[in-house]
């Protein structure tokens, strides 16, 4: 699929694409798990049952394959370590597994925390995936949560941001200069930077920076003209982040386009709003209270953020409650209800964020398979056509001639 040229797409409706994202969590927590203040970093792996894990992998992969069959434009995987939150400590492995099982969706690695890899190896892994998938790879580069630095303590959180920037330089040099080239930096020195294979997409797969809106990560995206994939944070924070991105990007000679604003959404579609809430709410609660549960110390390892940023976070933490459905569903991008309602709200969010890339979590927390299939299918069949109907000029074409709705019906019939 030919990506729209930079500068051509100005309105979100012109290039609306739907990505679905899966955390692939491990959900079999011990009955007394509430006594652990963190389910990250030091939560013992003795609680991981590989037999159950195997079944979960099979199920989760099936859900991603269904998304491809339903016509979703991108399948998003990401990576976390030492945690029940994600069973994808090597998300490139999951991407590789999905390639032969899928046909049209982009494989989105959003992605390997750059600092946990040697940048030439990252160029190699992503080069492989792009070539193997026939150019379906899209990547987003995270600094990684604070917890990743405790789990991978060979990498110093105090130099994480400087190292991240340098890794990015290596990666781009590897993809934009013919090898072998040389690189001399503070963290990395390459005599023969010459990774094989080179990516199929030229000059490289589409790149975004992953972040929660910290000034440093927004700055990197703006300087490079990359997209910004906002993790799950309150709406106001996302909007502020994208506003900053739109303002800053032209200063570095890059044009902001709506595909550069990727925002995470938790969505659930059902026959009625009441039913949607009933079926959805407990899994949001599980996600908020359990899978994301960790300590301030693990969130902010020494040097990971500046003392000034820590002051802001420490003040915010003091005023933060636990699971509050009203707050979550009004101040965060959590939407549930009938297809009409979900389409309306999602359309408003795309409009206000000037984004053509909602990244939707159809699975969340401990949601059972049947709900994921129902949600994903209803969303594909009923929500996507409503939103696509709004676009004044359809530029985003699927690889196959079949319209997305038709694919959705065919796939739903098969399941």
């Amino acid at each position, binding site marked *: 699929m030919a990506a729209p040229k930079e500068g051509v797409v100005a309105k979100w409706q012109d290039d609306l694409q739907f990505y679905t994202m899966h955390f692939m969590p491990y959900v079999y927590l011990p009955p007394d798990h509430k006594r652990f203040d963190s389910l990250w970093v030091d939560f013992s792996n003795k609680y991981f049952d590989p037999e159950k894990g195997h079944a979960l992998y099979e199920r989760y992969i099936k859900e991603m394959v269904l998304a491809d069959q339903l016509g979703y434009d991108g399948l998003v995987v990401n990576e976390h370590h030492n945690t029940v939150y994600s069973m994808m400590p090597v998300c490139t492995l999951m991407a590789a597994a999905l390639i032969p099982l899928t046909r049209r969706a982009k494989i989105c690695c959003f992605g390997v925390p750059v600092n946990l890899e040697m940048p030439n190896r990252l160029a190699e892994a992503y080069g492989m995936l792009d070539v193997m998938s026939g150019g379906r790879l899209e990547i987003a580069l995270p600094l990684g949560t604070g917890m990743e630095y405790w789990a991978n303590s060979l990498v110093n959180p105090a130099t994480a941001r400087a190292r991240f920037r340098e890794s990015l330089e290596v990666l781009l040099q590897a993809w934009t200069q013919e090898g072998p080239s040389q690189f001399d930096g503070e963290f990395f020195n390459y005599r023969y930077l010459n990774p094989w294979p080179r990516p199929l997409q030229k000059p490289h797969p589409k790149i975004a920076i992953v972040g929660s809106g910290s000034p440093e990560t927004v700055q990197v995206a703006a300087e490079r003209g990359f997209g910004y994939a906002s993790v799950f944070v309150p709406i106001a924070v996302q909007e502020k982040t994208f506003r900053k991105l739109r303002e800053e990007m032209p200063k570095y000679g890059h044009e902001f386009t709506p595909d550069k604003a990727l925002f995470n959404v938790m969505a659930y579609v059902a026959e009625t709003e009441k039913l949607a809430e009933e079926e959805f709410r407990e899994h949001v609660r599980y996600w908020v209270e359990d899978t994301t549960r960790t300590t301030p110390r693990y969130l902010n*390892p*020494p040097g990971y953020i500046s003392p000034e940023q820590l002051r802001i976070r420490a003040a915010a933490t003091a005023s933060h409650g636990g699971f509050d459905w009203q707050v979550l569903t009004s101040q965060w991008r959590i939407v549930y209800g009938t297809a009409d309602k979900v389409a309306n709200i999602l359309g408003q969010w795309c409009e206000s964020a000037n984004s053509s890339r909602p990244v939707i979590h159809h699975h969340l927390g401990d949601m059972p398979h049947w709900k994921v299939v129902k949600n994903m299918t209803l969303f594909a069949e009923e929500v996507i056509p409503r939103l696509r109907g709004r676009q004044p000029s359809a530029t985003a074409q699927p690889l196959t001639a079949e319209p997305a709705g038709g694919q959705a019906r065919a796939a739903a019939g098969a399941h």
Partner: protein
Amino acid sequence: MAVPWQSIELTVNGLKTQVLRAGTGEPLMFWHGGGTVGGWDFAAPWTERFQVYLPLHPGYGGSGDDPGMTTIQDYVMHYLDLLDALSIERFNLVGLSLGGWMAASFATQHSSRLKKLVLVAPAGLWIKEHPSTDIFRLKPEELAPALAENLAALGPPPDPHDVDFIVQSYREMTTLARIGWQRLYDPKLSKHLHRVRVPTLFVWGKQDRIAPVAQADSWTALVRGSTLRTFSPAGHAVLNERPEAVRAIAEFVTA
């Protein structure tokens, strides 16, 4: 006893550096540890005999931050610049914990500038049989109990929800992480300690839970002619906990 510190601010190779100064006499410089809890009033007896200089390391107190200071050698170089700025040629040096590691490294290279050296529960050596506690593994609430045998010696406990305290601790841990996130010791230091050619005293709390007193044997074996004084009951914060340890240091330096 509260010490009437005079706080002076210098720019050392471009970096703001705060130095506390009190007393008169020969110069005695104290290089503090990786944290600043407990304060500096324990140094009162020193100010009766010496002009005490207590510089705040870059990344602590009123001194500026330099993300480029990532090794103990960076601190050694910083202190050579500070000594020039203060016009101090020869001096007595006392280093505690992290500051003890700096002082030991300094002494391997610049013994001729030292009259006496005192290392209080120094960090820096890797002693497999008696490893130091990895303080990055300690939870905030575990830190103070690990530091002292007698917690009251550290003064009133800080409010763990006080944002200023949280931010200050985070800044100190950040400075420490720059130097030693991976390891708070230098695997090569043991090879170089024979170059310390200055009368050296080691001071240790017998109940030290950060750097166990058993480490002292390795240090005294490596620094020729050095002596050891231990104090009990006392932990890593032996200077706050045992005034007689502070006096013993004054006597050693005077002798």
